[in-house]
């Protein structure tokens, strides 16, 4: 079993994203990968990018490890009716592909940008 602990989930670009991974009952040949990714959510095909990765090879059965990434400057977290861009920390046990994750916000002031669509005059934020 793997868990992710983070003190905060909202960041400004350039901030340090850090947290702690705890695991129990892992096998000797397991390998854990911690990833900072972004992905899009919406009606159509999804897009995503893996921005940074840390690996834990041959972990002890029970243990913990801190991780640290720099929050990228782009793209910012945003959300509209048609599409959202979401940042995520995900931890994958590469042996059985089980995954734990936490969604983050990376944007100016640490606040997700909302795309406001007016019914009669559509205006999108770029």
């Amino acid at each position: 079993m793997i868990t992710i602990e983070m003190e905060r989930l909202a960041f400004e670009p350039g901030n340090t994203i850090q947290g702690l991974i705890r695991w129990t009952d892992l096998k000797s040949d397991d390998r854990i990968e911690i990833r900072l990714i972004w992905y899009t959510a919406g009606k159509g095909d999804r897009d995503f990018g893996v921005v940074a990765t840390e690996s834990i090879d041959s972990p002890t059965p029970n243990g913990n490890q801190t991780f640290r990434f720099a929050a990228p400057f782009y793209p910012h977290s945003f959300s509209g009716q048609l599409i959202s861009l979401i940042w995520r920390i995900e931890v994958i046990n590469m042996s059985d592909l089980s995954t734990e994750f936490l969604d983050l916000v990376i944007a100016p002031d640490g606040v997700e940008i909302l795309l406001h669509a007016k019914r009669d005059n559509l205006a999108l934020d770029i």
Partner: protein
Amino acid sequence: MSRTSIDRNLPTIGCTARNNPFATHCVEALAFQFADGDWQSQLTRLRQMGFRGSIVGPQGSGKTTLLLELKDQLAINVCEPDQIEFSFVSQTSKERANQLLHLEAALSRQQILLIDGFERFSWGQRRRLRKRRKSTGSIVVTTHRRCGLPVWVQCDPNIQLLGKLLGQLGHPHDESLYKLAGEYFFHRKGNIRETFRDLYDEWGTHRGQQSS
């Protein structure tokens, strides 16, 4: 210069894509529903078939979902991940010809081929792969119609399955939603993927607004 109107205080109309329960990332997370048995029994059956079979069904019935899940199940229970070759058959004939060569090479390396959209290959190309397989590796494909490979799973979308999936998306007892989903389902001729896309629009413009 593009006109912008960033306003972090204004509410969005309906709900955002992130919170829409019918967004692609929610729908793709739904597990395939077997009509009979579970993964263990279905893998046993596929093993008895020599890992040679087809997933047959109309568009939007879950064939690709099942094939992607099979890829993970094979990697966990049957073989090393690098022994599996997954391929979406290309839309263009030139790329398909190159894909065919690549897949034949994978078969000769004793890999398990998982091919999504097998019907896009020509009759001759499909025959080449089927004949090649007989002497070497294994092959599981998705296709709209029977293709000369034994049928492993027949996908038959129906209103009960749609209801089950709506329940998994977090709407187990929403009668008005079920009624609307049923109308979209029949309008889309049983295409569950398109039905969910219609529900996405409905939720984004009306339902989400009611619930926000």
